[in-house]
């Protein structure tokens, strides 16, 4: 299998062309052709399909698409080309899962199959900006207190000593170190010091911030996980590749991250599913990833809970869990924010699609499109874990029915979803406890879902 340095060589010697030409003459035509050739079709009535033959065809289509398209390096204006044999060899040689965390919280993150009876890896929390260290620590402590949490995401800081953090500036390094240290301290406080942080480094938008914040004395360990993104679509740059070189060099866990945009270069649901599947292959082969974080984002709505996005979640999960053993985490963005009924409906839908379709892990569905500072609380984290366990072992047909019913409850309101509340508006900062109103809402929604047929285990 080619080494990372071999790929770097391809990034400097591959076919040269402008980014515009790559998009318009290679990427978009190849998506259309492959979708047609492999007969990839979206069925809006079936957000959780159960068709294994279709799933396998989607996987084959992704391999073919990747062989035809490659990955564009926008720092060298060259295409990194890949051949079928090396893609399949990389998939074939994947280990069955990876180990994350330390001491009592060290766990094996195993891949799952469709309708698997084993609960998924619960990745808890978000990298949504926290406006203060106090709030960040309260959130992380809340995440760590969820017993089923296998790993967490820590919030990002966007100010230091009142100064705004500019990407690539020295302040980004300060913010990065402060966020990592706050995260570790909060986990220690809740008795889970070994819990792995898998969204590194949330406060760093640049490679320099990521790499500087990874100095071991600041608190990170190779058993944590660093998210390294593809650029939409099918592109990398030196920022990406430098992070990758560094993390691979230090033996850290690389989390390949792909959030393809439905309605962008990928086109509709079919093209987005194709790309989202292809990104798995790139994560395995090019990024040498230990895990994969993924989910579609709707170009217009900025969330992942539209009917077509849910279908993409489901078909990609089925295709990849049947054909690879790459540990993956499904990440959804909800349109509605914390302390709203709609958020719970959306989160439930994402969990039903992901858990049933065979994702190895699911992350707390991000409230309010992840754009509101302090816009997440441990209640969402708890609900997602409850929902993930409830969906475990469920059949696709049942999940499909439930998701359709949930969509009926929120689909029309996606464009004008309620923003919800910030942490400090529905949690007590001193005690770290939710407000009565929020607890009541959570209990009511759970009751409602139970009546719909969701069997909560706790």
């Amino acid at each position, binding site marked *: 299998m080619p080494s990372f340095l071999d790929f*770097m060589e391809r990034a400097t010697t591959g076919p040269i062309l402008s980014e515009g030409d790559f998009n318009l003459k290679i990427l978009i035509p190849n998506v259309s052709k492959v979708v047609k050739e492999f007969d990839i079709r979206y069925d809006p009535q079936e957000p959780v399909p159960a068709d294994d033959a279709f799933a396998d065809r989607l996987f084959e289509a992704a391999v073919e698409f990747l062989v035809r398209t490659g990955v564009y390096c926008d720092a060298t204006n060259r295409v990194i080309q890949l051949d079928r044999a090396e893609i399949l060899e990389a998939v074939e040689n994947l280990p069955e899962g990876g180990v994350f965390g330390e001491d009592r919280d060290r766990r094996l993150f195993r891949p799952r199959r469709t309708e698997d009876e084993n609960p998924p890896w619960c990745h808890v929390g978000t990298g949504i900006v926290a406006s203060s260290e106090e709030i960040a620590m309260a959130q992380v402590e809340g995440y760590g207190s969820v017993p089923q949490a296998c790993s967490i995401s820590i919030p990002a800081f966007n100010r230091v000593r009142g100064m705004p953090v500019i990407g690539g*500036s020295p302040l980004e390094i*300060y913010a990065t170190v402060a966020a990592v240290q706050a995260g570790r301290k909060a986990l220690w406080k809740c008795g889970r010091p070994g819990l792995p942080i898998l969204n590194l480094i949330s406060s760093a938008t640049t490679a*320099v911030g990521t790499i500087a914040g990874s*100095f071991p004395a600041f608190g990170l360990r190779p058993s944590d996980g660093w998210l390294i993104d593809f650029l939409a679509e099918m592109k990398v740059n030196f920022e990406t590749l*430098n992070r990758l*070189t560094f993390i691979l060099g230090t033996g850290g866990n690389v989390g390949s991250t792909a959030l393809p945009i439905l309605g962008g270069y990928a086109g509709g649901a079919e093209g987005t599913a194709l790309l989202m599947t292809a990104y798995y292959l790139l994560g395995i082969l090019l990024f040498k990833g230990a895990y994969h974080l993924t989910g579609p984002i709707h170009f217009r709505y900025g969330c992942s809970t539209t009917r077509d996005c849910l279908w993409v979640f489901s078909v990609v999960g089925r295709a990849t869990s049947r054909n690879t053993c790459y540990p993956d985490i499904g990440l959804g963005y909800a349109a509605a924010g914390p302390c709203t009924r709609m958020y719970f409906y959306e989160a439930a839908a994402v969990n039903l699609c992901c858990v049933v379709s065979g994702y190895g892990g699911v992350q707390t569905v991000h409230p309010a499109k992840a754009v509101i500072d302090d816009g997440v609380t441990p209640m969402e984290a708890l609900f997602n874990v409850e929902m993930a366990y409830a969906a475990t072992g469920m059949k696709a047909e049942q999940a499909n029915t439930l998701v359709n019913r949930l969509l009926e409850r929120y689909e029309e309101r996606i464009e004008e979803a309620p923003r919800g509340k910030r942490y400090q508006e529905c949690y007590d900062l001193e005690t770290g406890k939710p407000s009565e109103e929020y607890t009541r809402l959570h209990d009511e929604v759970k009751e409602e879902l139970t009546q719909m047929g969701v069997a909560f285990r706790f």
Partner: protein
Amino acid sequence: MLNFLDIYERALKGPIMSEQDFDLKVFIPRLREVVKAYGIKYDKETPVPSDDDAADNLFHAAVDFLSQVGVYCQDTNRIIQFTRDEILEAVKEAPGQCFAGEGKDADVFDMRKPDDHKAPWLHVGSGIVASSEEAMTNLVEAYGTIAQANSISISALDNIRGIPVMAGSPAELYAAIRGIRIGREALRRAGRPGLPIMNLISTAASAVTTIAASAPQFGLRPTDGWLVGTIAEMKIDFGSMNKIAYLLSWGANVGAETSPILGGYCGGPAGTAIASTAYILVGLLIHKGNYQLTFPVHFKYGCSTSRDVLWTVSASCQATSRNIPMPVIWLGYMAAGPNTRMYFYEAAAHLLCATTSGAPSVQTPHPAKAVMIDGITPMEARFGVEMATAASRLNREKANDIVIQLLEKYESQIETPPPASRYQDCYDVVTGKPGEDYVRLYDEVKEELIRMGIPL
């Protein structure tokens, strides 16, 4: 004392202006005014002046200049300003020493005064590009074998597995890590595993690579030294500031690196001497450096051995060693390359100027303006050590006489130095031994310098 976050805040909130306005409306006119106000004058007959009052006057001029001009941040287009009191407070609080190295090679790099007979801290080697790992290994091993070496510089690599190193690319990171590993391995072979590497990171042109390759997993230690540059003249950018923020966060040795250009914005030797002195203050204030590397160079000739640059080195070295407790490595760029008689004359002149003027440290003078790939050998390193040690036994007056004699021997050839040899042209790459011709030349020059009065 101002901490680095305070400095960054000033880079965000200081007076805003274009870079050109800073150059033309602030830096140049203020420098001219200060040269005039303090009566700083270049005397071409005295490349090594011995006037302590003049040295102190130059220091005060530099303080005044820096308090009027500040340092321009290219990324925010703002000036980081300092008051005179803040500058003097930084000087007062400066520790004047740097702990470097590990084990039996751990040592304290501290201060010297003009005419001090204590030998300077001997910083050996260069970051000149090596074309192969083999050549680099031989060079570093040889540097480590010099018993008097207190710290070393390791070569830069320009390719990794034949892939050219592009600044800011992953190939640069691979090459930087490889360079460090080769350096450490070569020092182990030389029996000096604890010797500090103080030109980090020679293979990294970009901040991202410097930061990445500094992770302890790759072999570096806080007791090595990282060079963080300023931009000519009196400018800094986020790249350097990021390196500082990172290195200070885990207690690594920060070496402020400066190279004032005679004939550029600084004007002539008087202005360059003020800037050269002010840069040492910048190293204290912005970099929070615990050592500094400086190498004034001539705009036209690209070297440090013209008569006016030698005077600049002597004058600013005296001003700083008498007044600023900052361990500075004084480095010179030579016009001539390895295996030439002229190189040795130039190197001797530069080392005489710096050492007798109180340089806390001197580095192997860099041959051929440091631009020739493989253009350095252990012979220059050895000569630098012997010459600096000998120079520490002289005073400024005696050094001045000898430097004038040396200038007579090479001054007219600065623009057209003789052809030089690369490492592989004058050394056996397999055994790491110098060719007979080079050994003969070395011995002849040494004999000649002894006759001139240098106690080699």
